[in-house]
């Protein structure tokens, strides 16, 4: 039977609840903590922006995939497809008087309409950082080291950050004609080395020429310092921009080693992200458990000028839903106390609950019907919680509040004969203390 439309989610979106939501929140908090420790401050921008704002930052293909709607005045609005452009707008307006550099972080849902061949979800939560007003290699290195720190904090160890340099590739490709250059850039963006190679060979019939062999070798150069040395050799055929880009890469590499994260990083000179706004060092992160990239970013020194505040900038985002798939679930069981009571005992039960909450415990209180308050049911709960080390699923007894099923570690059942405590000694102790402070009328 067909599922009813009103029960479905739009394609490319997800729901998160219970343990999955807890896992998600744990990851998000860990990243925010990491960013906070590097001095980044959280921001939030609207989910809706004028489409004209994104036109400043996105290329045509991306603009086509925006979800658009119209406001009453006929202006085109868009659900944000990414966060870098809104951050640029914010920096140029609300934050225009703030001292530089600006260190900003966010966790934001973003939306892109899926094509017929969906490679990515329509709804993606980007947890990211932007560093505005610092054009040094140290700023680029900070971005990368912070990503390594974030991934390591999540318990990941098998991951690698690939680094490229848009300025280097650009300068190298400037040596060929405009048409060929466009084809080569397109091939690199598509990661299609066959077309790339064929195009290089098509430029010059003499594949032994210095330029040809340099361009052929370029996308195959990967590694650490030795790769950069190779890049410098190839840059001899290029103009000064290529050599400056090499200095930049060496500088970033050196800083990364000094951050102590060199072993997580490798240069991949063929890396050329499909995005217009990148101008310098670019990065992509991968973990062994996931086939797709888990974070990406880079330097974008020209974007802010389009908003009237020329500032160098670099940034990076992590893909929260992908992290959920890659990070081991380590969230402890919730320390929830399920407290149920008969109507007559409400004052005591709620008083005890308030007391427990004051001590930092989570307490879910539920009224249960008088006539069903049977000892039998109580026994059912007792059995379930006796063997639960916190992880096992308690019985589906109506005594346990619905929202707490499967996670409650302790239970209190309060009927006219008094409270029955099912939990560890600590609960008994807390009850004793509660009683001392307040005599029981019930």
């Amino acid at each position, binding site marked *: 039977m067909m599922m009813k439309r009103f029960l479905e989610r739009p394609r490319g979106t997800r729901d998160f609840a219970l343990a999955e939501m807890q896992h998600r929140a744990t990851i998000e908090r860990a990243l925010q903590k990491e960013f906070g420790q590097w001095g980044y401050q959280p921001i939030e921008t609207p989910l809706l922006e004028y489409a004209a704002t994104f036109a400043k930052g996105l290329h045509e293909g991306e603009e086509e995939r925006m979800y658009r709607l119209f406001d009453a005045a006929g202006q085109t609005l868009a659900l944000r497809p990414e966060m870098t452009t809104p951050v640029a707008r914010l920096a140029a307006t609300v934050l225009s008087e703030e001292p530089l550099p600006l260190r900003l972080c966010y966790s934001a849902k973003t939306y892109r309409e899926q094509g017929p*061949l969906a490679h990515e979800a329509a709804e993606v939560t980007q947890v990211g950082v932007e560093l505005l007003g610092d054009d040094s290699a140290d700023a680029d290195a900070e971005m990368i080291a912070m990503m390594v720190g974030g991934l390591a904090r999540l318990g990941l160890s098998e991951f690698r950050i690939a680094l490229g340099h848009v300025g280097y590739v650009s300068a190298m490709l400037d040596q060929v004609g405009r048409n060929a250059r466009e084809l080569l850039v397109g091939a690199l963006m598509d990661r299609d080395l066959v*077309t790339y190679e064929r195009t290089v*060979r098509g430029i010059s019939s003499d594949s032994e020429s210095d330029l040809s062999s340099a361009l052929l070798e370029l996308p195959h150069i990967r590694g650490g310092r030795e790769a950069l040395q190779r890049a410098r050799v190839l840059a001899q055929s290029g103009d000064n921009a290529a050599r400056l880009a090499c200095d930049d890469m060496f500088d970033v590499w050196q800083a990364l080693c000094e951050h102590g994260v060199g072993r997580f990083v490798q240069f991949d000179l063929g890396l050329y992200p499909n995005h217009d706004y990148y101008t310098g060092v670019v990065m992509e992160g991968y973990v062994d458990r996931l086939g797709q990239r888990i974070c990406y970013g880079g330097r974008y020194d020209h974007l802010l000028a389009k908003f009237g505040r020329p500032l160098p900038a670099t940034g990076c985002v992590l893909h929260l839903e992908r992290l959920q798939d890659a990070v081991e679930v380590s969230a402890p069981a919730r320390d929830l106390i399920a407290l149920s009571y008969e109507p007559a005992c409400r004052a005591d039960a709620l008083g005890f609950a308030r007391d427990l909450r004051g001590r930092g415990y989570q307490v879910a209180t539920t009224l249960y019907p008088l006539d069903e308050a049977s000892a039998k049911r109580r026994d059912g709960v007792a059995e379930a919680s006796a063997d639960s080390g916190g992880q096992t699923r308690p019985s589906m007894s109506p005594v346990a509040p619905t929202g707490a099923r499967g996670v409650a570690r302790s239970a209190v059942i309060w009927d006219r004969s008094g409270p029955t405590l099912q939990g560890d000694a600590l609960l008994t102790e807390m009850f004793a203390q509660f009683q001392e402070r307040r005599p029981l009328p019930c």
Partner: protein
Amino acid sequence: MLTVALCKGRMLQSTLALLPTVGFTPAEDVIDSRKLIIEDAVRPDVRYLLVKPVDVPAFVEHGAADVGLVGKDILYEAEADLHELLDLQSGICRMVIAGFAGTNLRTVRRVATKYPRVAREFFRVRSQQIEIIDISGSVELAPLVGLSDCIVDLVETGRTLSENGLVILAEAGTISTRLVANRRSYQLKAAAIDELSDGLRRATGAHTGVIEGTKPGTARQGAVS
């Protein structure tokens, strides 16, 4: 561990002839075996997946396989997000437009094919909008029963075409086997993938360049290259 996705069917024979020359040796008689995962005869860190050709891009894109060997025809249709590393210059056949002799390509409206993207691109660069009839097998039947004006399909020998009274009207490009890699694996297993890629490059003489019959630098505008 390096997981290599291989296509069952047409290309398997030529792939199996090539792999051992670069030190990758499936442990069993892959052609006759019913097993879907095959170990390497020598290297404990290598295994092979046998999958339907059209599924290779998905296996590699999602990282279930680190690398794959797959025809450009399938790769082009899948538009998968992966690295295309090398043209193996094997498994070569032609992508053609075929129909009854005398069919005027300029007036073609309905095209039956397994390769809608190729077909659409071929006619688009000729400023023609066509209607695609998506068919998964025995495409030659379509013009015979009036379902379409012509077909776009792969031909190796052309025998099926001629036995059904069809002729090649135009060529859309040459298809060959490609080495593709998952994006994560390309970074995390760089050494193993470079070894395979460099080995295959030497073994196939891929560095000698352009396949006959295709013009360089037309890949992004033309249908297939």
